[in-house]
């Protein structure tokens, strides 16, 4: 409807039916499906690295004051750099390939993850730590059984935000980079003047983003909240 009224030619502003048929065909013949799989692989790898790095950095910042004074400040600074800004550097370092894209996905999520891990560790109630210590816990066991579980609620919301950052970084990276994926498909659509494809991919991006948030993260958060007996805000 809007497309009819816009006065633009069909290829620039395709109708809804056209978009849906492209979307459907793309999913069936594998063009879109393949792109989804490629993108997913990338984000899973990048995100996992970011989470591990975030945990390690968060632990170091929490544990050692001198790391907090130095690295803690840097993390805040890095976090305010949009990850796509790293792309020129990444291309020079790694070339225009998968690594460059992975790099910006990782760097997009790492800082947020670091910050939420740090604040999660810092906010573990003193009481739990004292209890565990008097029961004989120390060292790695102490971290594993008290510090990490006690900071789970905060870490979960950190994961959720980091995922969103990683997803954005991935799309931007693929759009500029190479090697397939949803972002690349967008670029193809633009180059070939197929706006129906572009809009289809946009729909897919939105659907995946929402699904991850609602199905994975919100559910995880809810289950933790019910287990802990924390009143739900929403």
């Amino acid at each position, binding site marked *: 409807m809007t497309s009819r009224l816009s006065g633009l030619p069909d290829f620039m502003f395709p109708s809804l039916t056209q978009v849906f048929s492209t979307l459907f065909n793309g999913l069936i013949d594998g063009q879109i499906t393949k792109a989804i799989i490629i993108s997913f692989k990338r984000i899973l790898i990048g995100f996992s690295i970011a989470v591990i790095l975030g945990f390690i950095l968060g632990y170091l910042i929490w544990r050692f004051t001198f790391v907090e004074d130095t690295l803690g400040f840097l993390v805040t600074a890095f976090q305010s750099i949009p990850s796509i800004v790293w792309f020129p550097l990444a291309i020079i370092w790694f070339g225009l390939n998968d690594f460059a894209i992975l790099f910006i996905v990782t760097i997009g999520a790492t800082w947020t993850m670091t910050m939420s891990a740090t604040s999660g560790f810092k906010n573990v109630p003193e009481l739990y730590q*004292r209890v565990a210590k*008097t029961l004989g*816990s120390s060292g790695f066991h102490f971290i594993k059984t008290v510090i990490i579980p006690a900071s789970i609620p905060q870490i979960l919301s950190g994961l959720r935000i980091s995922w969103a950052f990683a997803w954005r970084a991935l799309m931007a990276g693929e759009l500029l980079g190479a090697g397939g994926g949803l972002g690349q498909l967008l670029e193809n659509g633009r180059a070939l003047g197929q706006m129906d494809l572009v809009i289809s991919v946009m729909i897919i991006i939105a659907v995946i983003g929402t699904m991850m948030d609602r199905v994975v993260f919100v559910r995880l958060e809810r289950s933790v909240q019910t287990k802990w007996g924390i009143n739900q805000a929403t």
Partner: protein
Amino acid sequence: MKKMYLKIEGINKSFTNDQNEKVKVLDNISMEIEKGSFVSIVGPSGCGKSTLLDVIAGLEKADSGFISVSGKKINKPGPDRVVVFQEDGLFPWLTVLDNVMYGLHLKKISKIDAEKKAKEILKMVHLSQYIHSYPHQLSGGMKQRVAIARALVMEPDILLMDEPFSALDEQTKMMLHNELLDIWKETKVTIFFVTHDIREAVKLSEKIVVLATRPGKIKEIITVPAMKDSMMPNSVTLKMERKILTILQTEIDKVWKEEMGDEYSFQTNYIHRSDSNHLGNDI
């Protein structure tokens, strides 16, 4: 002669406050506690009784002096001296059973034995029905009982209790007093009990250590007549409570004067003291 078990020898401890001044909290505290006894520490708020407990637990380091349990010096927390805190401190991510089993995992006890032991202890505190519940599903008194079970299951040499019942309502408190006495008789564990409630101290313990405040030092050690098997007659407990309150009077006076200015005097405002029902509740 009974063997001295917990030895506290010349403990000094100072903290640095916000104005960077050194404040002496514990001043040359020395005492000896027999194995299997129930000792209470009473004193006005801020007298350092909880700090003393932390030092015994190994959570705080003393500036000088030492503490030993049956001859062994203490310098860090350990499962031989488990603490029950004012708040239960149960881990919200574990079930009641897992909370109680937490310390056992560290003792290298097999899973089956650990579970059996934990269940036994939970039966002792009458919580068998709730072993698979999460802490938030329990009432305050139940949570505190789980905390006690979690400490007892470690079979500690000394059970350190830091005002464990002060956050509970009166009825729950009374019930838990009886339960604690039963447990003490059954397990013969040595209990070091910190409280600000004189009545609680008289009801539960064999020996009461009265601490003076700022700096905290031992003012007097009172032995409570042994009548644990039957309820102590009211007149006896009242007399004890009054005695302790008299000892503490100057100390409480000190604290209140500091809080409310020098013109305040405990003596002139003692209407509530004549009402014996409120004895000991106002510290």
